[in-house]
């Protein structure tokens, strides 16, 4: 396979009156993994379906190495896909499931099965060759689907929230394995959609932030995370979403609209006075007995080994993330410390103007 770039120009898709993709442009290069992050219905699945050829865009085009890609029928595209539901062929054994795409490309039966066996070993399913997919657990079914997608050796591999229907521990395990599994695929473009920023950051060479059909930002994970282009991106690439507070800058002081003030941090001194929206990450807020902000717990949610506290505070509702497991009861009173040095500043329209 030669140098591959997948290029999308001005892609738009509407279905039944709702916009799924809105003038999306990007270029993807081989040997790299792209994670597409966005909430449910942001257009992630639609994007993959358009690349796969399962959906025709209303406008725009996709080219592969400058050759027109959009018009090709699905079965002639060099594309493999893994769905969020565990889609396998129920009537075929695990081994024949994986051998299926190879057989369709004319690989002799014996050779196809041998290669399928190797792939099953790579995804940790040796010993399950003769089972039917329905006899496997959810995680194992997804492994079969993954092996089958890899078997096709396509130039483009699409994964549509492949872990969303698995439970926490399996997701964690799969992510680790994915890093190894995709690392060796130098001639492949991998596009991976997810709603979880942690997953997007640890897996992706680059992140595409999609919201309501529009591509809001694309770039290296750390760049997107540290310099989110807008409040919307900032909300999407933080879990829980970045806290946003209205306020203004005047007399070299930062004022929240609740009345509280703070000294202007160094990275904001160049900003002209006026109205802004300030953002602070949930894990940049600290619970401290001497904190300046009083608040009341609405709900404490545990994720992995972190606790998300949703609070009602003097400066508005805030989400706080703390390490460890803290099953705080409802209406517990807490105090928070807010470090102005950790604040982001956005224009009233939402564009980023200053980042820590």
């Amino acid at each position, binding site marked *: 396979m030669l140098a591959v770039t997948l290029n999308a120009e001005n892609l738009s898709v509407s279905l039944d009156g709702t916009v799924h993709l809105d003038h999306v442009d990007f270029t993807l290069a081989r040997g790299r993994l792209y994670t597409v992050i966005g909430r449910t219905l942001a257009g992630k699945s639609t994007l993959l379906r358009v690349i796969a050829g399962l959906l025709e865009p209303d406008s725009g085009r996709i080219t592969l190495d400058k050759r027109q890609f959009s018009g090709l029928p699905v079965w002639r595209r060099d594309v493999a896909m893994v769905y969020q539901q565990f889609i396998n062929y129920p009537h075929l054994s695990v081994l024949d499931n994986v051998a299926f795409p190879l057989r369709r490309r004319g690989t002799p039966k014996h050779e196809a099965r041998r290669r399928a066996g190797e792939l099953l070993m790579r995804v940790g399913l040796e010993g399950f060759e003769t089972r039917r997919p329905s006899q496997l657990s959810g995680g194992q079914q997804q492994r079969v689907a993954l092996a089958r997608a890899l078997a096709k050796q396509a130039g483009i591999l699409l994964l549509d929230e492949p872990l969303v229907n698995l439970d926490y521990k399996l997701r964690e395990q799969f992510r680790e394995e994915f890093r190894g599994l995709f690392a060796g695929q130098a001639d492949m473009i991998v596009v991976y959609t997810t709603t979880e920023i942690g997953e997007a950051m640890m897996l992706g060479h680059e992140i595409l932030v999609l919201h309501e059909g529009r591509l809001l930002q694309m770039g290296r994970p750390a760049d997107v995370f540290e310099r989110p282009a807008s409040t919307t991106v900032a909300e999407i690439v933080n879990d829980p979403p970045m806290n946003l507070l209205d306020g203004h800058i005047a007399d070299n002081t930062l004022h929240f609209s609740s009345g509280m003030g703070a000294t202007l941090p160094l990275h904001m001194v160049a900003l002209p006075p006026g109205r802004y929206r300030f953002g602070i990450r949930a894990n940049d807020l600290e619970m401290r007995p001497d904190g300046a902000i009083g608040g009341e717990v609405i*709900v404490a*949610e545990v*994720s992995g*080994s972190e606790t998300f506290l949703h609070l009602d505070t003097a400066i508005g509702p805030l989400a706080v993330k703390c390490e460890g497991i803290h*099953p705080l009861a409802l209406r517990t009173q807490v105090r928070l410390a807010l470090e102005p040095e950790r604040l982001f500043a956005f224009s009233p329209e939402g564009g980023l103007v200053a980042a820590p």
Partner: protein
Amino acid sequence: MAQITLKQIGHSYSGGTRPGDYALCPLDMTWHDGRTYALLGPSGCGKTTMLNIVSGIVTPSQGRVWFDQRDVTGLPTARRNIAQVFQFPVIYGSKTVYQNLAFPLVCRKWASDRIRRKVGEIADLLDLGAKLGKPARGLTADEKQLISLGRGLVREDVSAVLMDEPLTVIDPQMKFHLRRKLKEINDRFKLTLVYVTHDQDEAMTFASEILVMSGGRVVQSGPPEHLFEFPQTTYVGYFIGSPAMNFLDAEGQGDRAVFAGIPLTTAYPGDRVPQGAIRIGVRPEYLEFVATAGENVLAAMVVDVQDHGGVRIVEVEVGGARVKVKLAREKPVPEGPALLRLPPGKIRLYRDGELVPLD
């Protein structure tokens, strides 16, 4: 609400009594009035069987179920006075929200003004007050789940509320709202709540006590933070927390745990440290990089860094083993050789996969 007692409850669908036959191995269990219990485990671990025994859908092949002083083992679901919320919302699709909530009371032949008062009260609590006149089938999935719960709450005789993975079909963005509502209601009504889930996040968020189940047995039970700090087995240590607890092969010598030739201090009293082959368990959250050598400080080599956004997971090689360290984003990540400290108070010792008790 009632206290639920399971006495020698076990169930095998085949009727056999050999250990391999049991979907739920015989156990004793008491669930206290007004507390929230989560049955947590992968599918096939026996958690749903246990719930169904309590609700009366399954009659246990052995043992008795007591609600307070009442033996309910032989009673059908309808006569156990429980409320249940299922995985998929169950509503009476042909009725309005009001009629749905009133249904259990109509069945109990309450007077209509008494029903109106009670339903109004519960509907306000569930934020459904404005929707009482609407047909129930037009609501969103999370509202439908609230109605299912509401049909239990209107009754005044409910012994326990049982929930079977009630958040499965809820849109991720709505889960937060529903969780909050459930917590609030739970807080207010002091329900005896039994909650079945395979999702440790949900269990940890909801329950005052979690029962971790595996292979038909309860592996450990206790409050969430206890499970996190003192996993009873290496399985629980792996299962609870993300990333999983690190385990290192070591050897007990005197009052020390020796790892890679280096004796480590622990919080265990000297005579508690088992001699011979043991494993050290320590959570990635508690490991720290330090600048100078000292007690419990090991030489390590950074081999991989995963950027998760708010945190980084640093994988290091230490004494021939791989260990994960969880670091907040603002903390510096060492490159190449580094010094890693195991805080003595956070070290747990395991022998044959079981936690060695600290006291």
